[in-house]
């Protein structure tokens, strides 16, 4: 501590925080890691490198990356509009953007599976165009976009609010085009927020379960995400394989979390 802090309750609040985290987060996760070290190394390697698991990792990472990129683009557009413009119905739109934060993801998944199924409201129109969303990997992508979009919007909004209008008008005054101003003036300043929004959406998409499983067809090696694979291993009482796959996923989540914390000032939930 650099200067003396006269505020009370540090010891009690700090020790309680540590105690609670130890009990609920640190010890349980350590137990899983410990459990994984008890596995036979060859079994472990074969459980995390067989075709089905690799296909699941590949699919999960690909759709999560795709969803995170799309969320950044849509998130920039939406947060730009919500911050910079006043228009009719803005407060209602703001409420709807936040809704998936409070709506259980499984419910969101069920709705999407229903409206995008060939008989549903969107499914009917799309199937006439020859596009099928429900029970395809496009459906998984849709679900992940829906879950991540509020996170992207809420992470990007503060930085757009902080834009220095002097710099902006100076750039225009010096004859820059709209695109040039965006690329040269805004984008560099936005980059830290974009990266943290990207990581948050990516982390969320990697671990999403409820929103995905109803709209996915969950066929092994084709449309099975890692969470679903772990779930089916658990249902078959194949706890050792589930532990091994879960550990690899955990390490990936740790890494992303570390990257977010190294980069972002704060994480908006």
């Amino acid at each position, binding site marked *: 501590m650099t200067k003396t802090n006269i505020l009370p309750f540090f010891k009690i609040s700090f020790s309680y925080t540590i105690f609670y985290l130890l009990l609920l987060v640190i010890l349980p996760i350590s137990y899983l890691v410990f459990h994984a070290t008890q596995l036979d190394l060859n079994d472990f390697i074969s459980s995390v490198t067989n075709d089905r698991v690799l296909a699941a990792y590949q699919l999960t990472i690909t759709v999560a990356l795709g969803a995170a990129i799309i969320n950044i683009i849509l998130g920039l557009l*939406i947060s730009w509009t*919500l911050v910079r413009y006043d228009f009719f119905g803005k407060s209602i739109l703001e409420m709807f953007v936040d809704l998936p934060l409070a709506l259980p993801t499984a*419910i969101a998944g*069920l709705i999407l599976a229903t409206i995008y199924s060939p008989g549903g409201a969107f499914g009917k129109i799309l199937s006439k165009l020859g596009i099928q969303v429900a029970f395809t990997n496009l459906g998984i992508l849709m679900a992940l976009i829906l879950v991540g979009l509020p996170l992207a919007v809420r992470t990007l909004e503060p930085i757009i609010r902080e834009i220095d209008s002097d710099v902006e008008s100076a750039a225009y005054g010096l004859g820059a085009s709209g695109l040039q101003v965006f690329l040269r003036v805004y984008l560099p300043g936005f980059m830290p927020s974009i990266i943290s929004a990207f990581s948050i959406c990516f982390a969320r998409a990697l671990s999403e379960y409820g929103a995905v499983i109803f709209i996915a067809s969950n066929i092994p090696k084709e449309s099975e995400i890692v969470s679903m694979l772990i779930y089916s291993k658990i249902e078959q009482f194949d706890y050792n394989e589930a532990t091994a796959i879960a550990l690899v996923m955990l390490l990936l989540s740790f890494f992303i979390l570390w990257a977010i914390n190294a980069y972002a000032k704060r994480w908006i939930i």
Partner: protein
Amino acid sequence: MKKYFVTLTYLIIIVCFMIPILSLFAIALSEGFDVYWQAIKHEEALEAIRLSIIIALIAVPINLVFGIGASWCIAKFDFPGKSMLTALIDLPFAISPVISGFIFLTIFGMDSVLGSWLASHGIQFIFAIPAIVIATMFITLPFIARELIPLMQEHGNEEEEAAIALGASGIKTFWYITLPNIKWGILYGILISLSRAFGEFGAVSVVSGHIRGKTTSIPMHVEILYNEYNYVAAFSVASVLAILAIITMILKNSLLSVKNVDLEKSQ
């Protein structure tokens, strides 16, 4: 420019958010209000709602105490390892809920040391309410703390330091200085935790054992109905959670405007 941005934003939000949520209510009410009400009043649905309420009423208050304590020490004090601590609080949000549930399944399952000890003492932990509560506590752990940390940081320490320097007790300082500044954050944190606790699906379905009418929470009951192709009933019960989510967000947005008014007044 404005025209295009506003139109596109409207389009995205209508397609991604509005139509899905409105279709939920449209399907739920498609066979009339009586059928809708019957699905919610159904015995198993009521059991699921009751179970979810019990879970939330245990998990959320415990996380509220944790959230206030954690945000106090993180926002008001400097200590080594603070960013580690913050990352740990975020962790449950970044882990797949299936893995979260599985962690508690391996700890309290029948073939673990703790699980068999509990079972031999006649305590039903896994596939029962205690395990569901623990899993829900884990999932909802970050929300209140994450809401309060930035709020407390924004306000700084000056007001509290002044109160302490003038001789106020720690409790009084917290009650009269800190609490008024964070009360809306606390309320929103409680609401979002409640929504999450009611709606947690992945982790709960791993530890619950799917005992129909006993360990099925609201989203699991919805899943059962959906898998039986009883879409109207499934969405009727789901609408309970959707209404809760909508109330949370309306309150959040009105709380934000109240907060802004407060800020303007104080300036």
